[in-house]
């Protein structure tokens, strides 16, 4: 069957029981704090690097998926959610408590590069400080911000005042440095190619990029806190649509649904899972079409026909999604325990519309190949530019098409199955080019795979017996998961691994809701891809990363 993984029988893939892991870590483990998804080991705040390197090098946990920071009544806590790229079902959580008054713990950055931004975010929003961190600054909020908004003693009423010197005119008379002959250039936050409000601080030598540093946070809405203020049952579900708002909504809803259903132990009817899977793949097609469209726009420049053709195809998918969910972008279609509506009546019409779309898709894809991938100038521009070697991609926690374009065979739909994916026949797409072109190709081929999945789902739904069409499990109107239960669950979103960490405190609202945004980790790789290249390549690399600032900043 196509879903079998290729053989990777090295030591890293060997599964160890929690007790074996504890034995491996030895004295480093102070306590156990198991989560629903993984064993959790509590360690001392000054042994983070040691513990993580043992796990990375000796036990094969090479994927730092997420760093969660949170505050309890008596302590701060950083959780390192580790996985294996070879088998993401093998998880382990490293819990690092920090002192309430002076929350300091050791940085994981020397072991996992991806910890850089994750820890900066933790510092920014929660106030935990990380020793040894190369560059512990605020990341989402402005430099002048006072206090840490997610910490308990944060006063929301207090106005944020930035004093005059900090807001002095940035257009100083003279910026020239006699020593250097480089030029500093702000790309964004308002620039035609930044795909939203992203700011790249770029240092140029002529047209060549010497250094690029993404500056994010312009679209920060504190989605995590919004989720913490909503009830599990209803009020959180509308918001995932707004993280990655490029019509990947259903994929995001899947992430929340999966985490919350596992937390509250809700069984989802099979019929609803099939509908969910179908809707999610439609979302994926819509998202990838936009990625293709904007990437063509970045390369072709100006205004290109490819952009409009891809948008046309996206519109077709969105029409289907509108029929199904009632909206074109902000679906709010999933509910805990199922979906809100069955397929639209008359069902035959919906099926035939979907089939029409699927039938016409290969023709469109052929057209895109003619338009861009077979075009020599396009190849000249994209092949061997923005190179991201697989080891670097892993170190940065890159996932999704970005990782798969670097030959990292990692797809949660297959490796950590959820929904109805493991019952269906489809392939994980990888390309070995590691460049902009490969990432584009991965997306284009994934669209074909998604079409396969949708087709199988349509077949299944068509033959589903009428009296077994159960779209909703019985779920109480108010959900109150047990006190102090923790879970981290991820799904394969349009841009990569989209994870949700939830800690419950016995009420109907989460005590801590943390989002692992794939774009956040993927964007971190930009300097690796762009340094030494030309400005147009930076733009191309950024386009091929396919970031959505709504998800980066949350």
């Amino acid at each position, binding site marked *: 069957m196509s879903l079998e993984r290729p053989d990777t029988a090295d030591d890293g893939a060997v599964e160890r029981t929690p007790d074996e892991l504890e034995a491996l870590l030895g004295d480093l483990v102070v306590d156990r704090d198991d989560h629903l998804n993984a064993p959790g080991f509590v360690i001392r705040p000054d042994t983070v690097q040691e513990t993580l390197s043992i796990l990375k090098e000796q036990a094969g946990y090479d994927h730092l998926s997420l760093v969660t920071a949170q505050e309890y009544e008596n302590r701060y806590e950083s959780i390192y959610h580790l996985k294996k790229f070879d088998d993401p079902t093998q998880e382990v959580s490293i819990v690092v408590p920090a002192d309430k008054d002076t929350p300091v713990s050791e940085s994981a950055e020397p072991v996992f590069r991806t910890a850089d931004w994750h820890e900066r975010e933790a510092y920014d929003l929660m106030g935990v400080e990380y020793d040894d961190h190369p560059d512990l600054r605020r990341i989402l909020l402005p430099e002048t911000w006072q206090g840490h908004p997610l910490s308990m003693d944060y006063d929301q009423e207090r106005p944020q005042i930035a004093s005059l010197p900090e807001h002095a005119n940035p*257009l100083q008379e003279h910026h020239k440095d006699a020593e250097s002959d480089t*030029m500093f*250039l702000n790309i964004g936050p308002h*620039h*035609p*190619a930044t795909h939203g409000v992203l700011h790249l601080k770029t240092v140029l030598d002529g*047209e060549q990029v010497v250094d690029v540093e993404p500056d994010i946070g312009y679209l920060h809405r504190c989605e995590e806190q919004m989720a913490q203020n909503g009830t599990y049952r209803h009020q959180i579900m509308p918001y995932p649509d707004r993280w990655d708002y490029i019509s990947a909504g259903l994929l995001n809803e899947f992430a929340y649904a999966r985490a919350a259903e596992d937390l509250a132990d809700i069984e989802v009817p099979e019929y609803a899972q099939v509908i969910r899977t179908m809707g999610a793949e439609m979302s994926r097609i819509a998202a990838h079409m936009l990625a293709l469209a904007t990437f*063509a*726009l*970045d*390369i*072709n*420049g*100006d*205004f*290109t*026909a490819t*952009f*409009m*053709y891809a948008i*046309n195809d996206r519109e077709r998918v969105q029409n289907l999604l509108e029929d199904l969910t009632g909206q074109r972008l902000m679906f709010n279609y999933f509910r805990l325990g199922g979906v809100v509506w069955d397929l639209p009546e008359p069902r035959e019409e919906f099926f035939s519309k979907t089939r029409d779309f699927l039938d016409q898709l290969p023709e469109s894809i052929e057209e895109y190949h003619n*338009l*861009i991938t077979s*075009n020599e*100038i*396009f190849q*000249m*521009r994209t092949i061997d530019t923005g190179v991201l070697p697989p080891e670097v991609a892993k170190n940065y926690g890159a996932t999704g098409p970005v990782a798969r374009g670097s030959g990292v065979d990692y797809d949660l739909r297959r490796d950590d199955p959820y929904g109805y994916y493991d019952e269906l026949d489809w392939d994980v797409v990888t390309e070995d080019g590691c460049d902009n072109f490969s990432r584009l190709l991965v997306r284009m081929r994934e669209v074909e795979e998604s079409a396969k999945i949708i087709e199988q789902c349509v077949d299944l739904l068509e033959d589903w017996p009428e009296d077994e069409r159960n779209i909703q499990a019985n779920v109480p109107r108010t959900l109150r998961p047990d006190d102090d239960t923790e879970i981290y669950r991820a799904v394969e979103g349009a841009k990569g691994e989209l994870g949700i960490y939830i800690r419950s405190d016995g009420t109907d609202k989460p005590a801590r809701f943390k989002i692992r945004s794939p774009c956040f980790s993927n964007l971190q790789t930009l300097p690796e891809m762009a340094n030494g290249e*030309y*400005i*147009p*390549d930076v*733009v191309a690399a950024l386009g091929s990363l396919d970031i959505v600032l709504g998800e980066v900043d949350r």
Partner: protein
Amino acid sequence: MGTAPAQLFPEFLVDTFGLPGVLGEVVASLIGAAVVANIILAFSGVAGPWAKRKITAAFTDRIAVDRIGPFGLLIIPASAVQLLAKELIIPEGVDRPTWDIAPILLPASAMLGFSVIPMGQIGPLNIHLADPEVGLALVFAFASIASVSLVMAGYASNNKYSLLGGLRAVAQNLAYEIPLIVTAMSVVIFAGTLQISGVVGAQTETLATVAGFDIPAWFAFVNPFAFVLFLTANLAEIGRNPFDIPEAPTEIVGGYQTEYSSAYFVLFYLGEFVHIFLGGAILSVVFLGGASGPGPESISFIWFVVKVWGFFLFTQWARAAIPRVRIDQLIEIGWKGMLVLSFANLVLTAVIVGVIA
């Protein structure tokens, strides 16, 4: 040489209205120049707000401007009013008056080029202002003033994107002007003259007759290789896709024109369109037999319009389909590819012409 070229436009005016002396010639020249300039302005006026939108819409499966007037044509005055009514924003620290001269220089340089272009006849009227002996050299000289304007704009704008755009414009124009002119030289060798009427005249003979149709000896048919070279270099010269890198909106925002607004922006925009039409006019003069075409001489202006607009259409087609090359690739194509090929073409042509003649 074909038929003797008809009387030039100013001379025609002098004769028809009996304008006396030097003053008469000056007046006639001014009138002639005004007429030619207005034809070109009308072209650009139609192309910018209306034709370009319509063409792009056709390529992208959309409906475009069709609300005001027949076929939406009244969008042209509407856009003009709208653009001129906008506020002219002058950024802090721009280098005036360089910043103000640049947008005037661009359309002016392109307009000047038209002074030597034969635009065909309407009835007895031959729309051709002047026919100096070095006409071809002159038109290239005029056209290349445009890059000065781009550098001025880029340098004076006090904006790093503009600066990059200006630098790119210089690099690109240097790299492509030479192949452009060298390729044109191969045509000059064929024609044996730099005078534009001579170059056009050399293309009036019949190259071959296929199934009863006379194929004229246009240099595009005589030497298609040179034609393709010239077309490519021409696209780069006028800065259209795939060589629109001095503007490159997705990379350097708008390049040299980033900081311009209102009337200055209109001037730049106009200049670019006039430049496209000048490119088309040069192409048709050098390779497509000028204004000649089937039918009587007296309607040849129509053929000129068709050829120039055909070239405009081609630039828009390229814009819809061809990705932009990167700056270093562009320079590489220019210096390592086009230059070598154009010289090879020149030598080959010289040898062939030398052997035959």
